[in-house]
């Protein structure tokens, strides 16, 4: 495909036609915040935090859904853009519980990051705030809709699995919220707790219950592995704290199958104090620890293989 030439923040760039302003800006390292955009998942153009200024355009377009065009002159952080982003953040924060000190997502939250970047403190508007009861009725997902910014990523990822589609937008305007069928708690819904939604939530609205209180993002070390519980081969992160596995979280929910409960709860086997490390064989009426070769009765075969190998 041919290239188009445009100017971003005064810098001339040549990028492939058809890509978005946001992708073009990324190429030159210009920062653009995003909430609802996920490269592999969805681009609803809903949160409007990624707006930029384009010379000649009447409004500020959302850069994640606006294609580049020849001769475009883009400003990613002009005063108008900053004012708009600040206002959008003020609006989100005005309807958000400011409990960042105890929030599980503290340090790993886009709303927090952008509020910090744009100096938004949450004092601009005094008015109604949502007072939903957090849904803690199931053992796997802690769901606090008061923190939800309605980016819609959870809906997109849930609907990406054909037999799911457990959640969607419900109600209108200020009262819009993400709901299950008949607005039931997750435990009474079709949810199988694959936690794809948790993996994409940019704020603290959806939290993996098994990870709660286990540490902040900077306390944890993550190692991405492929699950071997079944043939699907989901990717997930094993979270270590002080060298010990504290939880398993879905790594990339966008592609492939979701990470099921089996994969995520596997660590319970790992940390079971009753877990036997070696196989036991009954000898003379009593269990004795033996090698796997002996337990499986393959010791003679192995011996022969060794001979052949030589």
């Amino acid at each position, binding site marked *: 495909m041919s290239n188009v030439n445009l100017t971003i923040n005064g810098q001339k760039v040549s990028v492939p036609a058809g890509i978005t302003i946001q992708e073009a800006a990324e190429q030159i390292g210009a920062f653009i915040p995003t909430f609802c955009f996920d490269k592999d998942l969805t*681009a*609803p*153009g*809903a*949160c*409007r*935090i990624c*707006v930029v200024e384009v010379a000649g355009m*009447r*409004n*500020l377009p*959302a850069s994640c*859904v606006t*294609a580049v065009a020849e001769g475009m002159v883009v400003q990613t952080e002009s005063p*108008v853009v900053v*004012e*708009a982003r600040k*206002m*959008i953040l003020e*609006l*989100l924060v*005005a*309807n958000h519980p400011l409990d960042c000190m105890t929030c599980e997502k503290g340090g790993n939250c886009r709303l927090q990051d952008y509020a910090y970047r744009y100096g938004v403190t949450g004092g*601009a*508007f005094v*008015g*109604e705030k949502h007072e939903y009861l957090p849904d803690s009725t199931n053992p796997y997902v802690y769901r606090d809709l008061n923190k939800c*910014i*309605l980016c*819609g990523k959870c809906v997109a990822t849930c609907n990406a699995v054909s037999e799911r589609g457990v959640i*969607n*937008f419900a*109600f*209108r*305007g*200020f*009262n*819009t919220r993400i709901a299950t069928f008949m607005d039931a708690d997750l435990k009474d819904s079709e949810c199988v707790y694959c936690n794809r939604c948790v993996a994409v939530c940019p704020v603290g609205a959806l939290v993996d219950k098994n990870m709660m209180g286990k540490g902040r993002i900077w306390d944890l070390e993550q190692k991405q592995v492929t699950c071997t519980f079944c043939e699907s081969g989901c990717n997930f992160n094993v979270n270590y704290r002080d060298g010990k596995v504290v939880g398993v979280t879905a790594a990339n929910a966008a592609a492939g199958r979701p990470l099921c409960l089996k994969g995520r709860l596997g660590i319970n086997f790992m940390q079971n104090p009753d877990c036997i490390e070696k196989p036991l064989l009954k000898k003379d009426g009593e269990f004795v620890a033996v090698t796997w070769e002996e337990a499986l009765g393959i010791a003679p075969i192995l011996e022969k293989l060794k001979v052949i190998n030589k």
Partner: protein
Amino acid sequence: MNSLAEKRKTYQDQLAAKAKKTVIVVGLGTCGIAAGGEKIWSAIKGEINNKKLDIEMVYSGCVGMCYKEPIIEVHKPGMPRVIYGDVNPENALQILQDHAVNGKVVNDLAVAQDPKEGAAKLPDVPVLNELPFYKKQVKTAIAKCGVINPDSIEEYIAFGGYEALEKVLTGMSQVEVIDEVKKSGLRGRGGGGFSTGLKWEFANKAQGDKKYVVCNADEGDPGAFMDRSVLEGDPHAVLEGMAICGYSIGADEGYIYCRAEYPLAIKRLETAIARGEEAGLLGKNILGTGFNFKLKIKAGAGAFVCGEETALINSIEGKRGMPRVRPPFPAQSGLWAKPTNNNNVETYANIPNIIRQGSSWFASMGTEKSKGSKVFALTGKVNRTGLAEVPVGITIREIIFEIAGGIQDNKKFKAVQIGGPSGGCIPEEHLDTPVDYDSLIALGAMMGSGGLVVMDETTCMVDVARFFLNFTKNESCGKCTPCREGTKRMLEILETICAGKGKPEDITTLERLSTVIKSTALCGLGQTAPNPVLATLKYFRSEYEDHIFNKKCPAGVCNALLEYKIDAEKCKGCGSCKKVCPVEAISGEKKQPHEIDTSKCIKCGSCIEKCKLDAIIRG
């Protein structure tokens, strides 16, 4: 193919035969029904049956004079057609007896006469086209509303209906049709004002094996009922317009998205589609030309945002009515990702006339950039509410003071809201502005779909802004942040101002919010939501300042800022206010000036209504 012409001849003959009989027409649009039209229908019908009178009864849609509903018309051979207004079941029988039977016009109730050849003009009844309400109107798009029976395809055909479709199918290429529409200068009558011909051209040029025609009948602006009247009064005009569009863009299927709150419109559309298919004017192989066009109705579930074309398309697809990002525009990827043309009811209703009478006829009306005529719904504090079709470019003053007859009760005009919740108000000093798309936008309002809400001096403009923001806040779909959260905060600020708790910085905050919402919201609903606030701030800023700094509502509307007092000099101590006060806040000896205990007063206003001496002051 002369079967349509033959049919027309037959139907015209039938109508001519009917004209030799006495016919009573009852206006049974929603406005007529709401005013009691059905009771009048039964009363007259009962009497006709009882007395076995040789009088035929038919119904029609809205003729536009909503202020005179219930309306009936009497056609008596040898006499002009006479329109009666403010009819009730009792005087309807008088009209039946005196006029329909005995040929004596009931002058007290007669609104107008429509003279015809061979009938002597009535001396004491004004002529329809000379009525101040009618004089400056041009009836084209709604010419047949209230004139024909909306459920009769025969009458529609007799009045030239489907002639345009026949002309297009038998003698014009797709491009010729589009060129004709382009040349007419017709712009979308739903609000945006985009060139209809250009829109059709995009849909025509879009590649696709399947295309759709969509009619937006989700009219939801407070105070707007143009599209409802067209659908209820002349549904075939819309169907014909859509079929012509279908031919020109290469679509064989269309949807009418009509709000479920318009049950009568839906019913009449259903009938019209069925009759059209029976007559071979819709459906398969139309007029034997091989052109197929199937129409379906989709009833909306009551969300205002579904009037936004991409939300409307989502809704037809069975999805939640939330707008999509544009581009791609529906012309490229619309309904089920197929090229789709979407226009509103009035736009389609104009098409048959443009094809039949030619683009130059249409373009001869209007201003340089806005052509043709536009239907407006006149509501609010005017003497004559109703539906008026005027040439584009007429001044707002002419519409309000000539057609609508000025302000009720001799009060002073204050402002007119044009364009519903997306538009703005226009004050006295701009009344001479010509009504066209661009002039209205320059004033901070917009043509919108054509709702005119007229306000008088007793209207508080902050309260008006609050009303409209409450509407948009409730109707926001919740998708994008600025609209969902921003309209809520704007409303809250306006509510505090109206409650007398406004802060000095509130005006700046409102302006900041407005600017950001306008420039960043996803769809038209959000981008225009701040308009009522910006327009009232532009023209009535002092009212905001009075509320915030002086804690006064100059119009006397915002209760929290009002205080009721009795003027001791005027009060004669009659005690009528004391009696009517529901909270016993008024005290005083007989024949002595009374007093109001403001700590008890709930500001209900009952005392003011009772006092004959104007001794009670609200302020």
